[in-house]
C-alpha cells in the first residue's frame, strides 16, 4: 500500500510528504496520483516538521475507550503546504495560526504518531 512507506518513516521519527516529480506539488495523505497534475511519478520527501495551527478543538468526550478525554485535535498546516490531522501536546492555551513543530508519540509496533507542540 502506498501509505506503508509514510508510516515506515515514522519508525525513524521522520515526517514525510509526498511530492510530484513532474509538477512539484506536495500532498497528504499519500495517493497513487498527484492531485495537482494527475501524474503518477511521486516520491516521499522529508518535511521540515514545522507548521502552523490551522484550527483545533478540545475533544471532551472520547469516541472509544482507546482515547482519554480531554485532548486537543488539530489541523496543522505544514510548511510544505499539506494539512495533517494531529494532536497538539504540551501546555496550552492554543490559538489558530500559532507556529508548531512535530513531536512523536510511540506506537506499540515501533512506528510513531506525529503530534505537534509549540514552536518557541
Amino acid at each position, binding site marked *: 500500500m502506498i*501509505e506503508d512507506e509514510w508510516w515506515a518513516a515514522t519508525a525513524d521519527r521522520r515526517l514525510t510528504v509526498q511530492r510530484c516529480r513532474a509538477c512539484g506539488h506536495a500532498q*497528504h*495523505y499519500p495517493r497513487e496520483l498527484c492531485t495537482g497534475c494527475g501524474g503518477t511519478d511521486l516520491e516521499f520527501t522529508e518535511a521540515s516538521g514545522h507548521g502552523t495551527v*490551522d*484550527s*483545533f*478543538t*478540545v*475533544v*471532551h*468526550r*472520547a*469516541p*472509544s475507550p*482507546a*482515547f482519554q478525554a480531554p*485532548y486537543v*485535535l*488539530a*489541523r496543522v498546516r505544514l510548511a510544505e503546504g*499539506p*494539512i*495533517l*490531522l*494531529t*494532536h497538539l501536546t504540551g501546555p496550552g492555551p492554543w*490559538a*489558530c*495560526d500559532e507556529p508548531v513543530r512535530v513531536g512523536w508519540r510511540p506506537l506499540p509496533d515501533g512506528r510513531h*504518531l506525529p503530534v505537534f507542540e509549540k514552536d518557541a
Partner: protein
Amino acid sequence: MTVAIVGAAESDLGVTGASILGLQAQAITRALDDAGIALGAVDGIATTGVSRFSATQMADYLGIQPSWTDSTFAGGSAFEMFVARAAQAIDAGQCSTVLITFGSDQRSARSRSLGGAGEAHTPEAIFEAPYGPLFPISYYAMAAQRYLHAYGAGREQLAEIAVAAREWALLNPKAFRYGAGPLTAADVLAAPMISSPLTAADCCLVTDGGGAVVLTSLERARDLRRQPVVVLGYGESTTNTSMTGADDLLRPGSFDSGRRAFAMAGLEPSDVDVAEVYDSFTITVLLTLEGLGFCAPGEAAGFVAGGRIRPGGDFPLNTNGGGLSYCHPGQYGLLLLVEAVRQLRGESGDRQVPDAEIALAHGTGGILSSHATVLLGADR
C-alpha cells in the same frame, strides 16, 4: 424549469419505536395522499440510508418497478441532489412521478455513535482515526474555532442560531423541543462541552424521523389537488471526505452550490422569502449564509443578530425549528424540502411566513463534504 413538487409529508418524528421501512411507508403514503397520486403511478424513486441498495430496497418494499432510481449517498445533502436529478429525469422523459423519501430510526435504535461509522480501507481510517476525532462534530468544531479566530466573533453569536431555532420550534407542534421553553445564549454556552467551542446545545438533535416529497411535471402538477411548488434552480458542490482535504474551513462548497442555483433560477439572494438551511451545528448555518451570499464572509455573526432570524424577523430561517430543535434523523435534508413546500403553500400555521413566494433549501452532508442548494417557487 418544468418540474414541481406536488406532495410533501413527514413520517412520525422523535422517538417512534418504528423501523426505517415503517417510517418510510408512513412518509410515502402521507405524501402520496397529500398529492392525490396513487402508489401505482410512481415510476421513480430516490432514497438513501435504507440499506446498501436503498432505492432498489424501497422499490421492492413498495412492490413497484421504477424506470428511474437514485441511491446517491451524500449525507444530508442527498435529498437536494435528488431534486436536481429527479427534475432532469422527468424533463428527459425517463420517468413521470418521482418519490424522494427518507426514514431513520437512529434514536430508537441507538445507532448513532460519537466516533461515526468508519471504514478501515479509507485514508480517514488510516491517517485520522488514530487521533480520535468525533465524527462529524470535531470537524465542525474546528471550523467554528477558525471562524471565531478569523472574524473576531464570540460563542454567543454562534449560539444565536440555536436560540432562534428554539423560538421557531416553540411554534411547531411537531418539533421535538415544542413545549421545551425558550433557550438562551447563556444556556447554550453552559451546556456540556463536546468538542470545543461547540457544546451539546450547538449540536443538532438525534431523533427518529423521515419524510417524502412527490415530483412530477409542472403541466401535470397544475391538474392535481395541491398548489404546485416549482423547482426554479439547483446547484451542488462536493469538496472533501477527509478532515484535511479542504484548504479553507471558512469557504465550504455552499459558496459554489449557491452561486450555481441562483444563476440557474435567475434569482438573487435578496429574492428569497424563506430559507431552510441545514443546521447540523450552529457554525454550519453561519458558514452557509455566507456561502449562499446572504451576507459577506465574516458577516454572518452580525447578520443573524438582533432577532433577524427569529419569528417576526426580516430573514425567516429554519422555520420548523431546524435540526437543532425540530427533528434531526441523521440525514435531515428531506425535511428541509418539506418545510419549504409548506411555507410556499401557506400551510405553516403559527410559523407561516406571510406571502412566501420563493424558498431556499440547502443541504449539507458529512463534514461540510457535499452541498446542494434548491430554489423553489410558488406557482401563482
